């Protein structure tokens, strides 16, 4: 993929997700009903676009709206960007059968990072909506911050775009810039200073999106730039490692002339038995003791037992010691 490049480095990007805003279920079957008209961008995403527009206005730079989604999203993305973004980029998955944009959070973040990174649009600040309505994990902003190696300020409930010294285009590395408020547990709030270069995610009420002027709305559908992300290879799954279990031990058939005797013999109900031991040991010694006992009972072969003893010894860092034996509790 050749990511779109920016002529004006240091733009502000808003990342939005194409989701079903009012998923419908069939009342008689409870199954989801595919709907053509309920897909769109959530309030949080619209708010992210508005924050990006205001930041861009403030810094005298461009705002860009980016979406990883299906071709269906093109018109709506154009309408969203018509509010004032310099451009809109739609990255489709490149899979012709994909009408809903089937990228995972990790994949989406990687694609966005390619687009927004230094070789692409070179975005200074990235604003995302904090929660998608399709039960998303909300992890894309964080993963994006990781890929772009930018600090993150996520889940903002307000962003102070007002009263502060204006930041010109030159102050890209300035550390004091805007202030945001984040929700914390226990109904508390946290004020965070957000550096000029950062990934933010905002809630829907932060800034209602302005309406697009008519001229831009009319042009909207033509303005979206389509990108196609190459289909990435399926991640290699490691071979499945199963838990080791002792092999079964074969037992002779129970002796006895009638069924009752055979059941008695099989269960050992009337025989004398070894009284149970209660052993209290530190976990490594306990493991060694269990292995020894399994060996004594014949569940483990000699080689297996030796290996197990060695492992246990390595774990404890010493030779196996005698366990502390306690009397069985009444």
């Amino acid at each position, binding site marked *: 993929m050749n990511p779109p490049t920016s002529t004006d480095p240091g733009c502000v990007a808003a990342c939005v997700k194409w989701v079903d805003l009012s998923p419908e279920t069939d009342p008689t079957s409870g199954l989801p009903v595919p709907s053509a*008209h309920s897909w*769109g961008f959530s309030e949080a995403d619209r708010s992210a676009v508005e924050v990006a527009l205001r930041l861009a206005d403030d810094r005298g730079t461009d705002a860009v709206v980016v979406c990883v989604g299906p071709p269906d999203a093109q018109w709506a993305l154009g*309408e969203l960007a018509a509010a004032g973004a310099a451009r809109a980029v739609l990255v489709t998955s490149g899979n012709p059968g994909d009408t809903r944009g089937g990228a995972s959070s990790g994949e989406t973040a990687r694609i966005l990072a390619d687009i927004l990174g230094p070789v692409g649009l070179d975005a200074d600040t990235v604003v995302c909506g904090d929660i998608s309505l399709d039960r998303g994990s909300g992890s894309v902003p964080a993963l994006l911050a990781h890929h772009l190696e930018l600090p993150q300020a996520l889940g903002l409930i307000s962003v102070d775009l007002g009263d502060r010294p204006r930041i010109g285009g030159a102050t890209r590395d300035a550390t004091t810039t805007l202030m945001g408020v984040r929700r914390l547990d226990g109904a508390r709030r946290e004020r965070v200073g957000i550096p000029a270069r950062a990934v933010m995610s905002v809630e829907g009420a932060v800034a209602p999106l*302005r309406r*697009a002027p008519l001229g831009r709305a009319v042009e909207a559908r*033509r303005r979206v730039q389509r990108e196609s992300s190459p289909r990435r290879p399926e991640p290699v799954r490691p071979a499945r490692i199963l838990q080791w279990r002792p092999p079964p031990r074969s037992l002779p058939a129970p002796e006895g002339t009638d069924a009752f005797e055979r059941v008695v013999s099989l269960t050992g109900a009337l025989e004398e038995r070894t009284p149970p031991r209660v052993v209290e040991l530190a976990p490594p010694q306990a493991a060694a003791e269990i292995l020894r006992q399994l060996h004594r009972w014949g569940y483990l072969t000699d080689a297996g037992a030796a290996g197990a003893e060695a492992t246990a010894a390595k774990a404890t860092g010493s030779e196996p010691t005698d366990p502390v034996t306690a009397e069985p509790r009444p």
Partner: protein
Amino acid sequence: MTEHTAERPSSDNDDFDAIVVGAGPAGSAAALELARAGRSVLLIERGPFPGSKNMYGGVIYGRILDTLVPQWWTEAPIQRWVTRRQTMMMTGEQALTVDYRTEAWGRPPYNGATAYRPDFDSWLADKAVEEGATLVCSTTVTGLLTDSGRVVGVSTDRPDGDVRARVVIAADGVNSFLAKEAGLYGEVDPANYTVGVKETIALPRSVIDERFAVRGDHGVDIEIIGCTGDVPGGGFLYTNSDTIAVGLVLSLPALAAGGRRPEELLAELKLHPAIAPLVEGGEVKEYSAHVIPEAGYDMMPELVGDGIVVAGDAAAMCLAAGLWLEGVNFAIGSGAAAGRACHGALRKGDTSAVGLGDYRRRLESSFVLKDHRKLREAPHLVMGELAQQKLPAMACGVAEDMFTVTNPEPKAGLMRIVRRQMRTNGVKLRSVVGDTWRALRAFG
């Protein structure tokens, strides 16, 4: 407005050759015709997508689409083809149904279809866009731009929202604030309007097939009379793929004066013994309401003004004549005629009322105004007391008397039964003759 990429240059002041307000069937048909003729056209829709504000009483008659979108039936988002058409007359616990079915309506070129308007209208608007029209949604037109009495554009509720064109097509629906602003409507009389309310009810497809005795993509449309109590009106019930729709059309003044709420009357219809088994067990999926221009020809506005033409429901082109309940086809027909007439006027360079006069002539020579003029009396007859109250009661009464076996009493003759029912229902012979004569003339 910024520059646009018009195929044809227009005069310096104008952003577009034509602006179409409302992306319903009328507006989209007009935009499609204009764009196809190479005109730059802006189609403005106030909903988030075309059709999002629209509902109707059930059947789209698609013959008019043949010329606009050849083979439209292969691609239009249709729910079912109506192959079974019923007219039902009912009283409190009786119902008399005329049931017609034909397989011919279930194969190309088809007759009537049921569809969801949000799907159908979006599809038709997409056709206009494919032809080159520019669609802008989520934009409410707030008024007309005029220059010494002549319409030169519209203003919208968007920032920098004025847009100018040489002609404006008002396809803005039954309330048509634009036609009213342009002075094309006279006094608005609520008696000319009805309100339609409808429930879309989800049922498994197999249950619908079974209850309505249809298969595959064939469906049923039932028109009902005598189901609205004291409020003049009618009812309808039709099948979609996996929903059915049941609704009422109610006279506005009677509804306002009568003290009965629309959803109460609808609930009563659903409890009627002839309807209850059909809707039983369904889940209401969507409730909807819309006003209908009921009076047809007699309430139509001036269709043309200087720089403006009116099409579809905005011009009251909805046929509510009892046996026929049609609207979408008239909307498409009038919209297409408006588009062609505007193209002609633009070519001649005269979009005054005179230059646009071809619109009316086109409608006069097509089914749109011919049907409306022929049936201009029908709405009054259908909404009259005879059709609303007495006819259903009498018809059901005659049927009951004829088919009730009264042994050991001998059977009464048909004439005796009719006379008895006329007496019971207070129908005078003279009024029957008079109304029959009017009906023959109205529907003839």
